[in-house]
């Protein structure tokens, strides 16, 4: 079977503008059945707009798309029974309890009373919300709201799940729990479309990733393939005590087969095609009167790929990630 035949989502030339803002500028991709597909991009890149179009909340200006073999360009409704959506904002009913919210969402997809109550109880348990089941959603904390919103998106066991930044606003433990749940759903065969601006999250979870910037997909490939050119590279990070940029010409002269990238916080990133040894560089720096506080090898990460492909410094993305528990070393 060819890949095309197995695609559960097929998008061609999707474009959307809001007044003068171009949100999507002709994107195309396909997602295989059972795949965990990541959409990675900075704020305003067009991630949410893509989800909104695919789920039927926004109408595209141009392009066509199919979901589960059904042409949905004009009307998504005939495929909506296949889809579960976890929106970027927690939008359940504040006046209903956690349990009733889940039951209501199950009913929207035609689950019988027995089915939805059983599933709701199970999900509340999975997310550690059983105690809060009879409390009103309006009184939940931000993280609890997020978890219940995720539960509401999967109560009808959809074949395709759209997750719009599912871990944003969660504490470390909850974010980990959600990522585990995503991995479990994936293992169980659910096709997952995940948007995120946490690079590590995408790298850890997704099989294939599209980088989206300003409404355009700038790169799309499997994580393995994306990392490949970087895997051959050797990299090291050296932390210095004071500003070091003045040393750049000398460093490059002394170590011609290495490249040096200086960042604002007195870090030097060393890259080479063969193994880099810290000793020689550290010794050289100290001879020049620069104290080194740390030198360590770094594994190539998707962040490197992202920076290279998009030309966007990952700082903007990094700022957010500490909050979501993505800051830890993996």
């Amino acid at each position, binding site marked *: 079977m060819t890949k095309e035949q197995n695609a559960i989502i097929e998008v061609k030339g999707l474009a959307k503008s809001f007044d003068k803002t171009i949100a999507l500028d002709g994107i195309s991709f396909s997602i295989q059945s059972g795949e965990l597909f990541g959409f990675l991009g900075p704020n305003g890149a067009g991630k949410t707009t893509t989800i909104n179009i695919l789920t039927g909340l926004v109408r595209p200006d141009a392009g066509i798309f199919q979901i589960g073999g059904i042409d949905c360009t004009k009307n998504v409704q005939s495929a909506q029974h296949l889809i579960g959506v976890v929106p970027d904002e927690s939008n359940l009913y504040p006046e209903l309890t956690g349990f009733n919210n889940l039951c209501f969402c199950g*009913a929207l997809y035609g689950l019988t009373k027995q089915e939805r109550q059983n599933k709701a109880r199970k999900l509340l348990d999975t997310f550690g919300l059983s105690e809060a089941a009879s409390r009103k959603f309006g009184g939940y904390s931000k993280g609890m709201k997020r978890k219940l919103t995720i539960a509401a998106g999967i109560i009808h066991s959809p074949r395709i799940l759209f997750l719009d930044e599912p871990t944003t606003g969660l504490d470390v433990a909850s974010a980990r729990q959600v990522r585990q749940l995503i991995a479990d759903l994936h293992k169980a065969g659910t096709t997952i479309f995940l948007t995120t601006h946490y690079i590590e999250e995408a790298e850890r979870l997704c099989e294939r990733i599209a980088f989206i910037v300003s409404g355009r997909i700038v790169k799309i490939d499997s994580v393995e393939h994306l990392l490949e050119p970087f895997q051959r590279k050797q990299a090291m990070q050296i932390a210095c005590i004071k500003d070091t940029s003045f040393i750049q010409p000398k460093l490059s002269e002394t170590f011609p087969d290495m490249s040096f990238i200086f960042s604002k916080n007195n870090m030097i990133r060393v890259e080479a095609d063969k193994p880099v040894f810290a000793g020689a560089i550290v010794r050289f720096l100290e001879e020049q009167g620069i104290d080194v506080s740390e030198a360590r090898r770094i594994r190539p990460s998707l962040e490197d790929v992202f920076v290279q492909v998009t030309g966007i410094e990952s700082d903007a993305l990094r700022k957010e990630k500490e909050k979501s528990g993505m800051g830890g070393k993996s």
Partner: protein
Amino acid sequence: MKAWIAFWNILLKDMRSYYLKPPNISWGLLFPLVWITMFFIRSGLGMESLPKLLPGLVALSILFGTTSVLSVTVTFEKKGRSFERLLLAPISLEVLMLAKTSGAILFGTINAFVPIFVAMLLTDLSAVNWAILVPATILIAISSTFLGLFIAVSVKEVFEAQTFSNFFRFPMIFLCGLFFPVKQLPIWLRPVSYMLPLTYGADILHTSINQTSHMPLLLNFSLLTLFCAALFTFSLRNIRNKWII
């Protein structure tokens, strides 16, 4: 079957969340009672004139019961984005909006029977043609609900919905022939009257309660049904064009 489960639960949720809330219930009961008392004090008439006032009371109870609540249930949920959940559900927009409005229709119909029951206790209603009154009440509730829907989908904010619905409601009360016959209105205002659904509803109410009418019953019912269909269709088109951007 599946669409029915969704329909029923949307209706049930709205009933619990909005209509069966104590302020709403007491408002629904209190409002018609206050109107009745006010009319008697103003007119200084006896109980035997109650049937004369009844069409107006019934119509007002429906109008206020349906339009104000709906602008909240729809506009409010749209603003809080929970309405997106309903749009994502695998049911047609027609079923969805019928579910969203059936609560208001039911609420309006029940509201209408409050003054009727009060009148029953106070005076003799044996001349009333129930076979006309009951379906008329329901039809007026439907048209008034769809008018509320039309208003709700034409605005962005809850307060706008309220202002806009008053803009419709108050002139309508005076132009629809409930309190003065349309024929007594200045000639240039009459076309406006005939563009209001309540004009036809009021005429049916007059027919069923006081056996006085201006237009044939069948015409009234047909036109009122036509208004319902038009308002619903137009509202749905508005939702499709404006909410699914």
